[in-house]
């Protein structure tokens, strides 16, 4: 894969890749290069076509070069470095308290955590814009607030005077959707109500698919809706058939929506199929929370039976099972797993790199606070908490991606850049059909199908050939009387019948199958005369 990017802004400096390339550090770069290669190259050994082989070899070389250049960028040109928290000998990282962290970090970081006590309108849910710059906060009793996290300014705050269950940003911070008592609504930055999405019904959870511009919602009756927010069309409306569900997450890797149900099942959906792509029984009780790793191959689920499980969603197998309860789960950009239950937050980390998560940090709120939602702030080392008494933020070193890509999400975006990006992201809007379990399949060709069943003529020809060979069969001269012409003739006939048999059997079997096929539902089945009076009468 080449590195694909649109050049958007007129006044830009793109860091040049002309760096002194040293060959001796090639080994050091190797794993990084591999990350950018996105899959193995074509197997050129097998190819017979020399022309194609040459073309592919050139292409592969180009991919290798671009991956290497990307790895060089990572090595040399990244402005910021990742955060970390390391304990001394006997100390444990999970015993380090927030006040101690605060005293150690620099002054800019020490301004980030906060505790906002809003006891009247809670419990609160929160959502971050994709750049991490803005946060939207929704109180259950109708309080909506938009906050700029960089300056800690309150941009807009208003009261909708109605239950608000969930809130989510759309493609930028100018628009957000709130799931209210009867319908979800879309508001803009100034708090003006733009749309009321009546078709969704009483929505419990909302999610926004950024690349597809789809707003996904699950309502009280377990109906999943996808609405295109650019044109306003309802893309899909499916009944899950598994009852009320208030656990919903989007897999950022492939934009598949995961739902956790009260029967312990997790289902995965896409807008173009009415049945779930995946239905897996994860817990022996209701699923209380789930989260997807940004890499797309890990899923964490929590059940009411005090189990937290890590799943490999390439093989759909459980990797690890931990005991513990979580009301809410979230993966950070760097793969830390935050779980909140009661008034306590725990952050786990994959220290060994083998998906075996272990304790990394923990934080306790004031007793009695019920944490409803944990959410990592993108591109920052901050974990936002929405709880029954307001909202809080704590520092989690090493959680966020230190280097942002200006074309993807820019925390320092100016209004002009935002306008440009909006246009470009609209031009790059993906059709709903591109949502699938393995999105790397897009752009590849289907392997040729195995040869289909033989046609009728071919089959007849094969039978003829078999009969011919049976006729040709040599007749051994036997002892007296046993090679009589009548006997020979009979024997030959037997041979022919034997040769024909498998073909005729096959034909018979197929005919039988055709007969046994269920008649279609819409076809009228004629009942016997005696039973016709019991048949259900059609309304005319």
């Amino acid at each position, binding site marked *: *894969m*080449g*590195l*694909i*990017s649109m*050049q958007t802004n007129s006044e*830009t*400096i793109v*860091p040049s890749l002309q760096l002194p390339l040293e060959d001796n550090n090639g080994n050091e770069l190797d794993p990084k290069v591999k*990350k950018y290669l*996105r899959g193995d190259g074509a197997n050129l050994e097998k190819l017979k076509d020399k022309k194609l082989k040459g073309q592919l070899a050139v292409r592969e070389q180009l991919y290798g070069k671009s991956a290497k250049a*990307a790895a060089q*960028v*990572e090595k040399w*040109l*990244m*402005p*910021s*470095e990742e*955060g970390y*928290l*390391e*304990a001394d000998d006997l100390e444990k990282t999970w015993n*380090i308290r927030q006040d101690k*962290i605060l005293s150690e*970090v*620099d002054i*800019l*970081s020490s301004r980030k955590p906060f505790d906002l006590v809003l006891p009247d309108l809670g419990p609160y849910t929160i959502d971050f814009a994709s750049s991490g710059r803005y946060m939207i906060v929704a109180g259950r009793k109708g309080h909506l607030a938009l906050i700029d996290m960089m300056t800690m300014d309150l941009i807009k705050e208003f009261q909708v005077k109605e239950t608000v269950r969930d809130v989510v940003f759309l493609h930028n911070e100018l628009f957000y959707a709130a799931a209210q008592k009867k319908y979800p609504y879309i508001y803009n930055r100034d708090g003006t109500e733009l749309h009321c999405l009546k078709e969704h019904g009483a929505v419990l959870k909302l999610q926004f698919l950024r*690349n597809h511009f789809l707003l996904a919602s699950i309502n009280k009756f377990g109906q999943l809706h996808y609405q295109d927010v650019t044109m306003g069309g309802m893309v899909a409306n499916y009944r899950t058939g598994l009852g009320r569900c208030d656990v919903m997450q989007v897999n*950022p*890797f492939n*934009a598949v929506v995961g739902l956790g149900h009260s029967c312990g099942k997790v289902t995965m959906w896409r807008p173009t199929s009415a049945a779930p792509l995946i239905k897996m029984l994860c817990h022996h009780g209701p699923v209380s929370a789930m989260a997807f790793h940004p*890499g*797309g191959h890990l899923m964490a689920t929590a059940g009411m039976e005090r189990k937290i499980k890590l799943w490999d969603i390439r093989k759909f197998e459980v990797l690890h099972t931990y005991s513990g309860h979580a009301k809410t789960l979230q993966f950070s*950009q760097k793969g830390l797993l935050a779980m909140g239950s009661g008034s306590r937050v725990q952050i786990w980390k994959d220290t060994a790199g083998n998906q075996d998560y272990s304790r990394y940090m923990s934080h306790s709120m004031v007793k009695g606070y019920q944490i409803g939602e944990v959410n990592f702030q993108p591109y920052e*080392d901050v974990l936002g908490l929405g709880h029954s008494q307001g909202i809080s933020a704590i*520092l989690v*070193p090493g959680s*966020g*991606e230190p*280097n942002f*890509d*200006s*074309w*993807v*999400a820019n*925390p*320092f975006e*100016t209004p002009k850049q935002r306008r440009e990006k909006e246009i470009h992201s609209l031009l*790059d*809007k*993906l*059709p709903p059909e*591109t949502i699938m379990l393995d*999105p790397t*399949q*897009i*752009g590849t*060709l289907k392997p040729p199908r195995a040869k289909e069943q033989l046609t009728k003529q071919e089959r007849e020809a094969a039978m003829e050939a078999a009969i011919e060979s049976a006729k040709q069969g040599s007749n051994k001269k036997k002892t007296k009387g046993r090679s009589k012409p009548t006997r020979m003739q009979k024997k030959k006939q037997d041979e022919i019948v034997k040769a024909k048999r498998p073909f005729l059997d096959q034909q018979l079997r197929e005919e039988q199958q055709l007969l046994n096929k269920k008649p279609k539902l819409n076809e009228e089945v004629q009942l016997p005369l005696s039973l016709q009076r019991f048949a259900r009468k059609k309304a005319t």
Partner: protein
Amino acid sequence: MRIRTISRQPEQFTRERSNDLRKVHRNYEPSLHPLANATGYSRALTAVKLDKIFARPFMHDLSGHMDSISCMTKNQNHLKDIFSGAMDGEIRHWDLASRKTVRQFHGHQGAVRGLTTSTDGRILVSCGTDCTVRLWSVPVAGGMELNDSFDHSSEPLAIYVGKNAFWAVDHQWDGRHFATAGAQVDIWDHNRSEPINSFEWGKDTVTSVRFNPGEPDLLATSSSDRSITLYDLRLSTPVRKLIMKRCRLVFLQTKTNSICWNPMEPMNFTAANEDCNCYSYDARKLNEAKCVHKDHVSAVMDIDYSPTGKEFVTGSYDRTVRIFRYNGGHSREIYHTKRMQRVFSVKFTCDGSYVVSGSDDTNLRLWKAKASEQMGVIIGRERRNHELKEALIKQYQHLPEVNRVIRHRHLPKPIYKARILRRIMLEAERRKDQNRRAHSAPGSMPVQPMRKKRIAAEIE
């Protein structure tokens, strides 16, 4: 305890003054760019559709001739010069930048059949059916932009009279000789009124002649007896001859109308054939064509290579101009207009970005070589964007949705119908072949590829 958190100084990421450039940071981490394949695919689809929208290849038509245009030549030394000769004996010198006639050359009594310029671009050689070869002096480029007055005719430098009508002329790429084709192939020097050498092989008229760009003494001719002949000026007899088979379909002749050498691979040449196809040959190995370029539905009249050697343009009797890749079996592009009639002459310009066609309707037409190319000065960002689009299209061109848009061309109805008809006839021929093969002794009728099918013999 060691600890660090991400902290960004806003000054490091924002510009100081409003006239500074904005700072841009890239991070190619795959998890920050999810759905890269899908995005690339949808961008490629958009790019290919945009290409289709911007495909406006027709630039201008150059009118002025009073009769149909029979031949053209470009001045190797001046990018924007082109000469055209018409059936009424008029030769015009065009300036492509201003799209005007700079000069007219009067003198030929019958049709002008061949035009060529000398290596230094100072002398124009023309020949025609009035049995004369005329040498004209071409003024140096500097003066002529100033004076674009219309009537600026001039007298020929020399007139050489032959015995028979001349059908084609071509100048050596590097040297003082030129060759004319007619009843025989004559080699001339600028300063001599008699040919310095004559070649003959068979009795039929030679209809086209082209010098090899790499080897100045080598030339190829085609004649009306369906043959292509190679000559070497250093030898007294022709070198090699290739004869095409008479085609079984009555309407198809297999005469070669025109030849063009590939300027980048000078051992290869492509022949425009009367049977609607073009055949690329390796001059060292004439028993098999390297590639057969099919798509025209009527005789291919003229052919010219782009200076890059990667593609060539053909003009056809079916009133279309097509552009082929040098190794592609089908055309990359088809150009046609309602008013353009049979195309007798086509040329790529010396920078490879335009195509000029001269047709029966007395007009020259100027086309872009890449239909959707952006004209004018392109700034770096635009160029990079075009490059990106091209790369994306190249990457996803094998997918059916993208390929469908790439391949689709609107065809005039007669050509569309003729193509279907042609396909039916070829299919019938193939079937007949198959039947013959099935009913003859095994091995007596081997299957021959199209590259060999039309070749009758190669004579040394």
